[in-house]
């Protein structure tokens, strides 16, 4: 019994007198062991994983909704809700058969028409889904357990699209809910996943509660990440939102929470010193930091200015500002794809390697015609990752004798302003920061940020025909060797045209109490297989 319980017991004995016998917390010792208390990376403000694509929404949704397929830790899609699938040799016709006995949280069976409606909604918002939709001929439920997707062209990467971890995930919802317009939020949170969402106890910004769904039909066998039987070994999962890392750290040390999704690296030594806490890498696929430039307006509409940035920037400065002194947490990244994955390449990335040459960079910048105009940098202060990068960038640009217009604002405003194509003096921008989960940068399939389609591209609107040509070659590649060749070309082209400037590859930690077991490393926190006590 720790000191607090002793004190509590002593004082409660006195306080009991006037409290009608209400004293001890509602949960007895045994019940407490069956509740997992988790601190998520951000607030769960809304709960529609197709409409709102934040990572935190995806992470919570993975408990409540199930998918047709799920990737395992080798990034190979495995069958989840699907019992068997067939596709025509030209990859144009895909037929899926669901496992028997699948049920939603309200007791209704999962039918093919629910899947059809869910996929229809998902494909409007997801990049790969949009590609499928563009060549779609028909998506129908053949019978209660079978559905067929007929396309005009072959789409070999269908299983990947249906099982990937990149948001939005192709979650399966009841038809009535999936019929909601993809640009409006759903109102009900019923799924067929291993946990149900306890709506009555949801306090957006503070708490979200999930209860084990006993009607979940696990699939056979073993698995990892989004694949596998997804067995839940606690009764309840409580998410407590803590905006202040110091508070979360103290709570974890005190045993008031069990699992913290992303402790900041400076606090990790304190957690490590505590004999009751374990700390390890959260996601081996890590994250890629991004310094994104506006290709439409000066100075970064000139490739020389962009290259000057690559010449001058020190990925070590950025990464240290992000993850601190722990060298295990970052790697320099002379490329755009995730280290440690099959398609990783450093082709064309020499400009980011070696000692930094500030003078050469200044010369190149002058050659590009830069004459001292203000450079508007949008920096979100409420996201530690963008804030740290923004500070380093301001310093970098100053050392390049550039005139920095530092706009410190919040993530919401950055989201709005970065969509504007106006010239910087009239509400536009020249630089903003963000980051991409490593899982999203494994290949160009869901990797909007590396595309060079000009006006239709992601914010910054880079135009790089060489990159697009190489990406097309990747999509058409028949095997891994061909894919690797294509990706090397993508990397080189994207580097030469500086689609964006990667600031480095970094990892984050997760921390949990010693009495919790079964925690996996992965792109999102997986609650199956996790037990307490």
């Amino acid at each position, binding site marked *: 019994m720790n000191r607090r319980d002793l004190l509590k017991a002593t004082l409660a004995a006195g306080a009991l007198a006037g409290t009608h016998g209400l004293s001890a917390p509602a949960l007895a010792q045994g019940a407490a062991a069956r509740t997992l208390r988790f601190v998520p990376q951000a607030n769960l403000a809304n709960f529609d994983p197709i409409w709102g694509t934040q990572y935190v929404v995806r992470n919570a949704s993975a408990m409540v909704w199930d998918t047709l397929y799920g990737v395992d830790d080798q990034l190979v899609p495995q069958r989840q809700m699907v019992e068997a699938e067939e596709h025509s040799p030209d990859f144009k016709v895909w037929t899926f058969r669901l496992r028997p006995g699948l049920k939603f949280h309200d007791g209704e069976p999962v039918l093919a028409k629910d899947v059809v409606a869910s996929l229809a909604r998902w494909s409007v918002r997801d990049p790969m889904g949009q590609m499928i939709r563009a060549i779609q001929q028909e998506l129908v439920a053949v019978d209660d357990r079978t559905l067929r997707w007929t396309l005009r062209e072959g789409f070999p990467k269908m299983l990947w699209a249906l099982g990937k971890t990149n948001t939005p995930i192709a979650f399966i919802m009841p038809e009535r809910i999936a019929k909601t317009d993809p640009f409006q939020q759903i109102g009900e949170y019923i799924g067929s996943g291993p946990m149900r969402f306890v709506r009555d106890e949801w306090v957006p910004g503070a708490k979200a509660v999930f209860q084990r769904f006993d009607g979940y039909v696990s699939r056979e066998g073993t698995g990892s990440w989004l694949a596998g039987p997804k067995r839940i070994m606690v009764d309840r999962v409580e998410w407590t939102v803590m905006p*202040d*890392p*110091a508070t979360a*750290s*103290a709570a974890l040390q005190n045993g008031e929470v069990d699992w913290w999704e992303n402790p*900041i690296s*400076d*606090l990790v*030594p*304190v957690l490590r010193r505590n004999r009751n806490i374990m700390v390890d890498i959260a996601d081996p696929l890590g994250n890629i930091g991004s310094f994104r430039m506006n290709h439409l307006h000066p100075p970064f509409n000139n490739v020389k200015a962009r290259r000057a940035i690559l010449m001058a920037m020190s990925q*070590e*400065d*950025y990464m*240290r*500002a992000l993850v*601190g*002194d722990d060298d295990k947490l970052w790697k320099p990244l002379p490329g755009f794809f995730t280290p440690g994955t099959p398609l990783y390449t450093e082709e064309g990335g020499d400009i980011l390697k070696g000692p930094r040459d500030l003078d050469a960079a200044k010369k190149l910048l002058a050659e590009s015609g830069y004459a001292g105009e203000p450079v508007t940098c949008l920096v979100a*202060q*409420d996201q*530690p990752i963008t*804030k*740290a990068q923004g*500070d*380093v960038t*301001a*310093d970098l640009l100053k050392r390049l004798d550039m005139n920095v217009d*530092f*706009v*410190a*604002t*919040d993530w919401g*405003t950055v989201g709005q302003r970065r969509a504007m194509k106006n010239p910087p003096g009239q509400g536009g921008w020249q630089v903003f920061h963000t980051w991409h989960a490593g899982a999203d940068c494994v290949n160009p399939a869901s990797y909007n940020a590396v595309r060079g389609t000009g006006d239709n591209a992601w914010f910054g609107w880079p135009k790089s025909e060489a990159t697009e040509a190489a990406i097309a070659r990747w999509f058409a590649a028949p095997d891994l060797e061909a894919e690797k060749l294509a990706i090397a070309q993508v990397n080189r082209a994207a580097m030469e045209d500086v689609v964006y400037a990667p600031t480095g590859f970094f990892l984050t930690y997760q921390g949990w109490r010693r009495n919790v077991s079964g925690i996996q490393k992965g792109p999102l926190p997986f609650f199956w297989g996790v037990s307490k006590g």
Partner: protein
Amino acid sequence: MASAHTAPLGLAPGAAAPSGPPQEVAAAAPMPDVLPAVKPRKGFVGFIRRHPTIAIGGFLLLVMLLIAVFAPYLGTVDPTALAPARRTREPSAEYWFGTDMLGRDVYSRVLYGARVSLIVGFAVALLSSVVGLAIGLVSGFVRVLDGIVMRIMDGLMSIPPILLAIALMALTRGSVRNVVIAITIAEIPRVSRLVRGVVLSLREQPYVEAAVASGTRMPVIILRHILPNTLAPITVQATYICASAMIIEAILSFIGAGTPPIIPSWGNIMAEGRALWQVKPYIVFFPAVFLSVTVLAVNLLGDGLRDALDPRMAKRL
């Protein structure tokens, strides 16, 4: 809202007592247990003895001002110079207050931070006093406008000042100017209420009525009779507003709605260091001490001024 009986109490700290019992009582029956007497002294030392709060407060504030003005010469480096390789170093001979999470020298940032906090404090105090004075005068004299203006002021006062400031900051981007404007707007109602109270009570005075009757023009009346009487309460109120503004700026930065980090202020140094409070407490500790001392100084100054200028004001404030 506060009724006319006890007029605008505002956010100002409550009253302190005069330093000695009123003369009549001391001459009448001594009550040693309840009100011990204090012996007055003469001269500068006497001044300090009689008004220790002004002395201490003034002195501390002066020190802070000097620090702010002479920051570049006090052994500081560029407060925004990053050196991520040297981040979170403990205080040492090289880095007197240590370095923060981006490798910036905390000592330099704290010293330069004095500028922002003091500028915010003084600017808000000055602006809100001037605008509040104008509004209060208008409201006190022009009956027609009085009702409307006071309703608006009451409305503004009933929104908690911090929420008001945050909301105003959310409208624009962070900068010292915007922080000053946001906090000023939140503090104006109090000043205007105070001034209006003075004006209302003075307007009934015989000499004012006489002036009006003899045809003196309004601006002259205001200048000669009203204004001098408002100066004392406004000055005292202004010092409290200054202290309040500095704290509000710190809170705004804490929440992330204050001055941008490229300009160090005590508030945002603390905000940035709060995550590391347990492991590197010095990042929060030093600016906290400086802020507390400065606010303390301003509060003491305000108390002392109030005692010196007019102890009867104590109740009204």
